[in-house]
């Protein structure tokens, strides 16, 4: 209210209250006076530049010609450069994502093949050692239909079975 920061509706409601309440009115008056006086004094005690000092201060500020960055660098241009850079990065990222599978396809195939081969070897050796103790070979004679079965142990030595 004192600083005149309120909306017109609030001001009118407070003014209506102040008319009825002497205590609040006194409080308001004291606030107003303190602030008005302070503002008044601030106005009365204003400093100003001596023209020569002002000119010197400005000359000092513009002394360094490099201070002002070239006209290419004003903020809107910088903004444009920033957007352009972001665009280029976005395109590059998209291309990378699109092209990556092709590169990876060529690049990873041998690796996966090697991996599967290694896995097979490992499994095979484990299988041979742990399970395939006996190898069975069967020969079927087409003329007679007779079957001959050979059994070998894991060292490929012939075993005779009944």
């Amino acid at each position, binding site marked *: 209210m004192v600083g005149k920061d309120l909306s017109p509706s609030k001001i009118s409601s407070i003014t209506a209250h102040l008319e009825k309440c002497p205590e609040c009115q006194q409080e308001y008056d004291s606030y107003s*006076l303190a602030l008005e006086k302070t503002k008044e004094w*601030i106005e009365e005690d*204003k400093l100003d530049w001596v023209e020569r*000092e002002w000119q010197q201060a400005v000359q000092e*500020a513009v002394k360094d010609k490099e201070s002002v960055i070239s*006209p290419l660098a004003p903020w809107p241009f910088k903004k444009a450069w920033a957007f352009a850079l972001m665009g280029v990065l976005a395109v590059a990222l998209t291309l990378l994502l699109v092209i990556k599978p092709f590169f990876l396809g060529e690049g990873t195939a041998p690796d996966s093949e090697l991996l599967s081969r290694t896995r097979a070897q490992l499994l095979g050796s484990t299988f041979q050692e742990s399970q395939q103790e006996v190898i069975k070979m069967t020969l079927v004679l087409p003329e007679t239909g007779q079957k001959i079965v050979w059994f070998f142990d894991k060292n490929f030595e012939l075993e005779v079975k009944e």
Partner: protein
Amino acid sequence: MWMKNEDELVSEVLEGNQSSFELLLRPYRQGLLNMAYRMTGNREEAKEICQEALIKIYKYLYRFEKGKSFKSWIYKITMNSAYDSLRKRKKSEDIIESQKRQAFEGGADPEKQFLNREISTKIESCLQNLSPKEKAVFLLRDGDGFSVEETSKILKCSSLSVRTHLSRARKKIRAQFEQSNLGFRKEVKSEL
């Protein structure tokens, strides 16, 4: 129209026309100086702050977004320089003494000097209990007539924070007024 002229002057400075810089800043030179003076209470320090602010304004003018308030932008820079200066300042007796001496150098006329001294003492008395933030908010809002929103932008804080600090500052000023017996009671009574 005024905004357009300011934007034109900004463009001219950016194109290398240094004389436009003086024209651009001239309308605000007194306001900036007084803002710095009220923040520090020292004339020489205030001029140094303004000098530093002018250098920064020239250096970073390319960052100013045309169409926005140039006044708010330069006050923000000056206020930051004032805060930096307050941070660096040693609160020694020497500085306080020199501050008192310099603050009262009003002019050649002894009567004017006396009046200036009296007013400065009153203002200092009112503002002495305010924190830098409260002082800044009070000076920008009540002294220079910036809106709450503009003040919040200058001080990089929320509108709520501005209102809170402003309310606190006003309360302290009023309390200081009563405490100092600066003719306050008499005037209130005579007005009532």
